[in-house]
């Protein structure tokens, strides 16, 4: 059950604007790896490169599943979802005019996921009982915390091996951030997921991280082999802790 992701020497950007410079990151099977950095440093762009929404100019992104290596560059987003890579987009991006259940069902749009629709629906309703209560409510009418639940549950509906989470803390009250982060850890354990989480809320992200990287101006400036290494890093102190 080794589902890993290795990103090597990726350069990417939008038009003539370079965003990522020679980024190399490894996410091993069953790990939670955090990508730390404040706004505008390229976290979301890297996630978009992995999901096929942005095509890198150079470099390699390889997904390894049970010994099989698959190059992700040049594949369409739907292909990549098929391979078992799901994403919780930044700012949740639900379908506001659709109900909770319709949102969840759309997470299982791909043929492979559709076959396990009922099973996965039962699983996410078990993980988020609140969503079962509100299954017929329009997603846009829910609170921020509930919407985040829908976003995470929706990504789980594609039955992923790798979960990419882009800034789960955005727009949430601190207590809800803790709950969301704890939920990601819980799902990771239950489903034996490999998780890459981009986050700027260092204190929260570090709670569940096995390892992490710090990205500054599109370059990986520091690689922390464990949570303590990240915590004791000068850059963290400089950027996040105000030292």
């Amino acid at each position, binding site marked *: 059950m080794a589902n890993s992701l290795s990103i090597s020497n990726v350069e990417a950007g939008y038009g003539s604007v370079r965003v990522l410079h020679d980024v190399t990151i490894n996410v091993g099977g069953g790990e939670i790896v955090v990508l730390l950095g404040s706004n505008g440093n390229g976290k979301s762009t890297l996630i978009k490169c992995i999901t096929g929404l942005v095509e890198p100019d150079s470099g390699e992104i390889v997904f390894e599943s049970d010994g099989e290596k698959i190059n992700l560059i040049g594949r369409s*987003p*739907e292909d990549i*979802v098929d391979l078992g890579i799901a994403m919780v987009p930044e700012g949740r991006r639900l*379908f*506001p005019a*659709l109900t909770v259940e319709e949102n969840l069902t759309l*997470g299982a*749009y791909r043929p492979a*996921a559709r076959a396990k629709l009922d099973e996965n629906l039962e699983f996410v309703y078990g993980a988020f009982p609140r969503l079962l209560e509100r299954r017929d409510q329009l997603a846009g009418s829910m609170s921020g915390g509930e919407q985040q639940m829908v976003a995470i549950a929706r990504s789980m509906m594609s039955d992923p091996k790798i979960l990419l989470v882009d800034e789960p803390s955005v727009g949430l009250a601190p207590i809800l951030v803790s709950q969301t982060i704890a939920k990601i850890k819980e799902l990771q354990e239950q489903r034996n997921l490999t998780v890459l989480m981009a986050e700027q809320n260092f204190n929260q992200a570090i709670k569940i991280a096995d390892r992490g990287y710090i990205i500054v101006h599109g370059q990986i400036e520091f690689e922390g082999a464990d949570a303590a290494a990240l915590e004791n890093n000068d850059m963290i102190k400089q950027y996040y802790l105000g030292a």
Partner: protein
Amino acid sequence: MKVSGFWIGIVLMLAAGFVLAGVADNQFLFFAGYVILQGLIMAVAWNVLGGFTGYVNFGSAGFFAIGAYTAIALHQFAELPLLVLIVIAGIVCGLIGLGTGYLTLRLRGVYFAIATLAMAIVFESLITNWDYVGGSAGAYVITPAEVPFFDSFIEMMFILMLVLSLICVAVSRYLSMSRMGRGLASIRDDETAAECMGVPTLRLKLISTTVMGVMMGVAGAPFPFFVTYINPLSAFDLLIAVNAIAMPMIGGTAVWFGPVIGALLLGTIQQIVTVTISSELNILIVGAVLIAFVALAPRGIVGLFQDFARKRREGGK
């Protein structure tokens, strides 16, 4: 239960059409009915792309004209039966829909709307300069004085349009209620998110432009035979184009029966106004009704009823 209800409704509508054809002597009824049903097909067609998928556009009615001129061109070439003309016009418009989809679908929002409008203008200039179909002078079609099975040609045209519109409504309903419909709705709500979830957005959008093109072409193909004279000005008529957008907007764009309600309502009002007041007042009425709905009920009649039903449900608790 719901499925069988729909099909019973379809059969009843069809039966009502045939009964009307058998009983009524007033030829104006068939004339008015034809115009209303033509509007209905166009409204349903516009709604597949503009409503379900959320790609609001002003060029859809151009496909109606292309359908009409495909029929004229084929009619000049060889006197094919009307049904064959309709099928070919549907295919041609579907292909043009697919092609323009490829060219324009990378644009979103207002840019897409402008591109489709420009496309309709390009086609109008092409047809105006195409002598084979009459150019700007237009073309005449001589309709048969007698037709088999029906009392008059216009009666046959009415029944034909009824059958076509019922088919289009059934297709649009299937599209909206299937898994594909949910995919289209996800594009309407948030296209980037839909892409993230693995919804094949490009393919769905191309299906939607193609279906829109086929339906518009099918609505347009019999048009020259209905009016017996066609020129670019009448095929690309502003009123026809505005109706195709106004009817779904008034009925409600999110569900399949929205444009049906809008088309029947607005189309009937227009016909009554034409007879009782004046035909020039038509477009004014469309404008006024459209403004009223955009301001007071942006989700159309269906939206009004949904809000009403929700308030009652919540009030009852």
